[in-house]
């Protein structure tokens, strides 16, 4: 300042300084709220004319909801998520570390999820209460599994499906399964064997259940009828004895009858050799031969039958070995 005074005319500079100062403070007061932006091309003015006032948005319905309202009335049915009607500050979205998941307004993720706001526990209770008057009581005597099994041995299983797709019909809904315990069917030995052969794979030995599944008809009712028909037909077939069944061969036998088998023949031959009488017997004689004359033969027969009928296991083989040893007169197995 003093320089100016010494170099130039003091007064002029002085005045301009004051003027500059005055002007600057006035300008400052005006722009105190914002920083000054340099607009060379004067864009701001033109833009300001075009901006239209946005419509006033009313506050959400969610803000006004009381905390003790009946939610079932607010959200009566399944509906996609509507942020202004749900008073919860819920957030969804995956964001990198340090950021905040987006809020509920205009959140596509939340709208995508099928929500259960229409099925909150109080609503469900209310619905159950409403249906209750149509329900009857469970029969008192059917209180255990055995009782149910006794009175209702046949079990029919069907499935209903609900899904989101252009049609509401699901082709899997026509499948019908029938389950019944074999013990509940009245079958004798031959009938049981025939029934099992007819039914084949559908029988589970461990649980003694026969499972018949039908899906060849287009409607559930038709499949149900078909499955009932199958059961009836198999049952009746099992009881009928055909002509050609008498021609059953030894190989087809499902269980082992010792008398008809090679094993007996072997035993008899061996015995004859031991006693020194070599004979050639015919088939009939083999079959009718009384083995009680041979010592230990009865146990042997049992052991062999067991071996075949029950399948091989440690015990059956041990037993077989024991009986053979006795038969042949060999010492017992030393452990």
């Amino acid at each position, binding site marked *: 300042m003093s320089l100016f005074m010494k170099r130039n005319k003091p007064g002029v500079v002085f005045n301009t300084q004051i003027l500059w100062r005055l002007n600057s403070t006035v300008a400052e007061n005006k722009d105190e709220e914002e920083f000054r932006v340099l607009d060379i091309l004067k864009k701001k003015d033109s833009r300001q004319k075009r901006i239209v006032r946005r419509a006033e948005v009313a506050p959400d319905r969610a803000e006004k909801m009381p905390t003790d309202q009946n939610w079932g009335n607010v959200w009566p049915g399944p509906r996609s998520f509507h942020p202004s009607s749900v008073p919860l500050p819920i957030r969804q979205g995956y964001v990198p570390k340090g950021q905040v998941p987006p809020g509920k307004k205009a959140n596509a993720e939340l709208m995508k999820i099928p929500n259960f706001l229409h099925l909150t526990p109080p609503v469900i209770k209310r619905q159950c209460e409403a249906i209750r008057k149509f329900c009857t009581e469970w029969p008192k005597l059917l209180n255990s599994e055995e009782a149910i099994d006794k009175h209702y041995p046949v079990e029919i299983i069907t499935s209903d499906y609900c899904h989101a797709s252009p049609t509401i019909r699901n082709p899997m809904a026509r499948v019908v399964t029938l389950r019944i315990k074999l013990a509940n069917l009245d079958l004798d030995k031959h009938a049981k064997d025939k029934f099992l052969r007819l039914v084949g794979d559908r029988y589970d030995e461990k649980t003694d259940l026969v499972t018949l599944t039908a899906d060849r008809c287009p409607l559930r009712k038709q499949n149900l009828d078909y499955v009932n028909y199958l059961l009836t037909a198999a049952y009746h077939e099992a009881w009928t004895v055909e002509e050609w069944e008498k021609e059953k061969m030894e190989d087809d036998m499902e269980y082992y009858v010792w008398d008809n088998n090679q*094993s007996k023949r072997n035993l008899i*031959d061996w015995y004859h050799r*031991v006693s020194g009488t070599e004979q050639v017997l015919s088939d009939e004689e083999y079959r009718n031969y009384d083995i009680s004359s041979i010592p230990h033969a009865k146990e042997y027969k049992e052991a062999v039958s067991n071996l075949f009928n029950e399948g091989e296991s440690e015990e059956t083989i041990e037993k077989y070995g024991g009986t*053979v040893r006795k038969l*042949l007169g060999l*010492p017992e*197995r030393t452990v």
Partner: protein
Amino acid sequence: MLIRNIRYACRRYSQAVTFRTAESSPAEHNSNHVGLFYTINKDLCKQLYGHGGLPKSYMKQSKTFAETVIMVRQPALDIIACMKASDLEKPVTKYVLYGEEGTGRSMTIAHLLHYAFEEGYLIIHVPWVSDWLRRVQRHKEMSNSLTREGMVDVPLDAAAWLLHFKTQNQHLLKSPELKISKEYVWSKREKTEAGAPLSELIELGISRVKYACDVVDAIVHEVKHLSNTGKFKTFVAVDGYNGFFNSLTRLKTPTKKKVAPEEVTLTTSILELTKGDWKNGVIVLSADMIANPDEQNKQIFPMNLLYRKGFNHLDPFVPVKVDRYSEREFITCANYYRDRLWLRGPPEIEAELKLTSAFNPYKFMEQCAPL
């Protein structure tokens, strides 16, 4: 040298207490010797097992250890006891060894062979059935049988087996009582007289390979006859017997048709032998799942391996189970391996090995190999 021998002797003595037994005659083995190893003379080894009889891996091991030892185990003792107690006038008893892979069936048969040898039996030993039926090298020489229609011969195998038979029974073939009873005509110029010694027949078979299978058949008949008449006692051992009851072999006729086991002449000969209509003999067979490689499930029980057919053929037989090691046997085996420096490392290794090998002898041997 002397010092080394003394050292050996001392070592042997001290070890005899732990896992060896000095008793080298199987006839004397009894339940005191269970779990202990006994050594076999080298020449005897060669004679008995020259053409097979011990498993291949075991042969390798014995070469490494420079000695052949066999462990005395319960199944072998069982059969020996039965053999001692049985009356040879009765029809032959059949024993079938069965058990898991690697538990020692072939070893048991080897042990019993030694015993039979000591007792002076005539030995008919088929080392491994699948050799005949499944081991097809590039070109298996086969021919259609001459004497029987529709059957197939395997001449080379038959000749090899005759040689094996000869070496095993060297000492017995010298005896004058082994004579043939019938006359066999081979061709216009060759025939064997009745009353000729058995060794002549064998020589013929070895030299004239064309007739080898028929020679085998003839020998089978003769042996049965001899045993029936009481002149000799016979010991028959077949390893992998259930191979005969497979549905197919790997052999193919020159017309590329697959052959079933019954159509092979050797099969019929052995089946003849195991029929059980002769006496003065003992038959030991082993049922091995390796002989049925087409089967998916691992069967160890004889029924499943022999099928109905085999069972009917063999019934009644005595099944003998060959089991895994017991605790005691395991310890002796581990000690033996340590002595041979096959197994090294801290003692804790043994506890681990016990569990990993699950007491299976073969697995144990395998797992010690890298240690």
